[in-house]
C-alpha cells in the first residue's frame, strides 16, 4: 500500500470509528482482496461503501509483480520466451508469439509457411484454453457453480492437444525465432478435430446454461456499460472493446504475421458494452477460434518448420513494436535492441493492465454484487496485470 493510500485508509477507518460515537450513518471501507474468492489472483480493491453502494474504488496491484521488463534486459532472446510464457498463464503460447514476431521483424527473418500455420493453430488453441475458463468462471462469480466444471473438463482436452505438440501444458515455450521447435506429432490433426467438436458442444451448453439464463441476464445486462470512446481512451482491447461496438480485431485488421488473414472467419461485435455483451462476444470468439483452427488443420502447408537462423541469436540494432490479438486483448512487445545477445529494453504491453485500469471509473456508484460482475467481465489474469 502506498503512503497516500495508507493515509486514506487510516482516515477512512477513523471515519468508521466515529460512527459508533455519533450514531450517524457513514461509509465503510471494505478490502476486497488480495485474498478473496472473487479476485482470482492477488488483485486487491479498496472500496468505500455507503450501504452496499460503492462510493470509490481503488485497485491495488503489485502483489505478483515479477519484474519481467527488468529480467528481460539480462536474458538472451530465446530465454525471454520462458519468462513471457508466465504473463497470461492460461493462454501461455499466445504470449510468446508477439515477442518472437518482434524479434523476427528486427532480424528480418521469416518463419516458413508451415510454422506460421501451426503457430496460428496453437495461438487459437490457447485462446480456446483461456477463454472457455472465463465462460465458466463468469458464472461462478455470479453464484452458479456448475459451469466452471464443464469449462475445466473441456479445457483439459485442449491442453492435451497443446501438450502433444509442445510438451508443456502450462508453459509451452515452443516458439522460436525463425519458426517452431518441432513439427506436429503424428495423428494430431485428427485428434484435434474431435476436440474442436467437443468445444463447440461446450459453447452450446454455455449458451443454454449461462447466457440464456434469466438470472444471468438480469445480473449482467446494463451492468458495467463501457461506451466505445471511453473504452478506447483507456486502451481496452480484445473482446472488451468489441463488446462496446468497436469493430477492431488485429487478426483481421493488421498483418500480425500469422495466417489469420488467409482464413475465412468473422469478427463479432456487440453494441451494448455491458457485462453481458462481453460474455457473449467471448462466447462467439471461442466458436470462431474453432473455425480458425479447423481451417488451419485443413490447410497446413508442408515444408520445414524452422527458417535458417544463426545458432547464437544476435538481434540487429533497432526498435520494433509488434502486437497480436491475444486471448485477453492486444498484447505487444516494444523491443529496443542494440545488436547484442540481450534486448536493451523490452516494454511489455499486456492487455489486462489496460483492461483493469478502467475499473475505478466503472465501479463508482454500483452495488457490491455488481462489483463482482463488473470485475469478472473484463476478464483479467493477474500475471497479465502485474507482469
Amino acid at each position, binding site marked *: *500500500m*502506498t*503512503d*497516500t*493510500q*495508507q493515509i486514506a485508509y487510516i482516515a477512512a477507518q477513523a471515519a468508521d470509528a466515529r460512527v459508533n460515537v455519533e450514531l450517524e450513518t457513514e461509509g465503510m471501507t471494505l478490502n476486497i482482496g488480495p485474498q478473496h474468492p472473487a479476485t482470482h489472483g492477488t488483485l486487491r480493491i479498496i472500496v468505500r461503501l455507503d450501504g452496499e453502494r460503492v462510493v470509490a474504488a481503488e485497485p491495488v*496491484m*503489485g502483489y505478483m*509483480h515479477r*519484474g519481467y*521488463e*527488468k*529480467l528481460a*534486459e*539480462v536474458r*538472451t532472446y530465446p*530465454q525471454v520466451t520462458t519468462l513471457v510464457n508466465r504473463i497470461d498463464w492460461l493462454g501461455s503460447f499466445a504470449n510468446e508469439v508477439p515477442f518472437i514476431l518482434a524479434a*523476427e*521483424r528486427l532480424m*528480418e527473418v*521469416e518463419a516458413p509457411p508451415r510454422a506460421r500455420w501451426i503457430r496460428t493453430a496453437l495461438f487459437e488453441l490457447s485462446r480456446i484454453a483461456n477463454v472457455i475458463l472465463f465462460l465458466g468462471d463468469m458464472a461462478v462469480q455470479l453464484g452458479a457453480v456448475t459451469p466452471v466444471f464443464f469449462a475445466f473438463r473441456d479445457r483439459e482436452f485442449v491442453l492435451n492437444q497443446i501438450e502433444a505438440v509442445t510438451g508443456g501444458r502450462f508453459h509451452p515455450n515452443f516458439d522460436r525465432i525463425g519458426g517452431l521447435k518441432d513439427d506436429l506429432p503424428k495423428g494430431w490433426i485428427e485428434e484435434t478435430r474431435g476436440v474442436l467438436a467437443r468445444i463447440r458442444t461446450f459453447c452450446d451448453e454455455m449458451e443454454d446454461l449461462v447466457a440464456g439464463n434469466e438470472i444471468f441476464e438480469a445480473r449482467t445486462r446494463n451492468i458495467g456499460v463501457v461506451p466505445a*470512446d*471511453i473504452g*478506447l*481512451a*483507456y*486502451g481496452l482491447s480484445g473482446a472488451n*472493446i468489441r463488446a462496446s461496438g*468497436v469493430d*477492431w480485431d488485429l487478426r483481421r*485488421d*493488421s*498483418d500480425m*504475421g500469422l495466417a489469420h488473414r488467409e482464413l475465412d472467419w468473422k469478427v463479432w461485435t456487440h453494441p451494448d458494452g455491458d457485462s453481458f455483451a462481453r460474455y457473449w462476444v467471448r462466447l462467439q470468439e471461442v466458436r470462431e477460434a474453432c473455425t480458425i483452427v479447423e481451417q488451419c488443420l485443413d490447410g497446413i502447408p508442408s515444408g520445414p518448420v524452422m527458417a535458417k537462423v544463426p545458432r*547464437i541469436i544476435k538481434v540487429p*540494432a*533497432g*526498435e*520494433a*513494436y509488434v*502486437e497480436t490479438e491475444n486471448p485477453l486483448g*492486444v498484447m*505487444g512487445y*516494444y523491443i*529496443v535492441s*542494440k545488436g*547484442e*545477445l*540481450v534486448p*536493451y*529494453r523490452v*516494454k511489455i*504491453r499486456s492487455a489486462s*493492465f*489496460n483492461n483493469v*485500469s*478502467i475499473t475505478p*471509473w466503472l465501479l463508482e456508484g454500483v452495488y457490491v454484487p455488481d462489483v463482482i460482475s463488473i470485475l469478472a467481465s473484463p476478464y483479467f489474469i493477474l500475471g497479465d496485470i*502485474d507482469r
Partner: protein
Amino acid sequence: MDTVDDVEAPTVDVARDALVSTLVEALGDGFVTGEVHPGVDVWVRVAADSWLAAGVALRDRCGMSYFNFLSAIDWKPSPYGRDMDAQVDGPEVSEPGPMEWGTTGGETRFQVLARVHDPVSGLGITVKADLPDDRPEVDSWIPAYAGADWHEREAWEMFGISFRGHPNLVHLYLPGAFEGNPLRKDYPLLARRIKPWPGIVDVELMPGDDEASEEGDDA
C-alpha cells in the same frame, strides 16, 4: 501494419507520411524528427514541452482514439552488464559505453514514449520525447487519454519520471516505502546480487551431492 517480410514492401507510405506531416503542422517547433518505415511503422520525436500537445493533436487531428501504452527508456547503459557472475554466452560489460539512441535518435538520458492507434485505419504511431537530464519531468497525458493514468504511475515509479498534472502519482506496483527506480539501468538486479542466476549453468546440483562426483550425473 504490414510485415517486414512483405516482398514488395512499398518504398513510400502515404498514410504514415501524412500522419507525420499533420504532426509537423500541429506542433510547429515542438516537432523534432520523424521516421517512417514504409509499410511497417512510424516514429516521431517531439520536444518535451510539446508532449501533451502531441497527444491532443494525435487524438483530435489524426483519429488516434485508441491509447495503447506509455512508458520510458533509460538510454544510459547499465554499469552492471548482464549482471551475472559467470558469463557463458558473452563477455561481461564492465565499462558502460557511451549513450547510443535508437530509432529517431535522442539527446538526453530519459526518453518517454507512448503509442496510440487508430482503430479505423489500423495505423499506430510511437511518440517519443527527450526529457531534461536535470529534471525528468513531462506533462501528463491524462487530459488527452484517460488510460494514461496507470501507465504514468508505472513510469514514475520505475524510472523516476514525474508527470505534471497527474492527480495521483503514487506507487502502482511497488510497496509504499520502496526507494529507487528499478527499471533505471543503474539500478542493479538485486536478485542476482544475492544469488547467481541458476540458469547460467544447465545442471544445478541436487541437494546432498555438493561434489557431484560419487552420484554420477543425476541431472
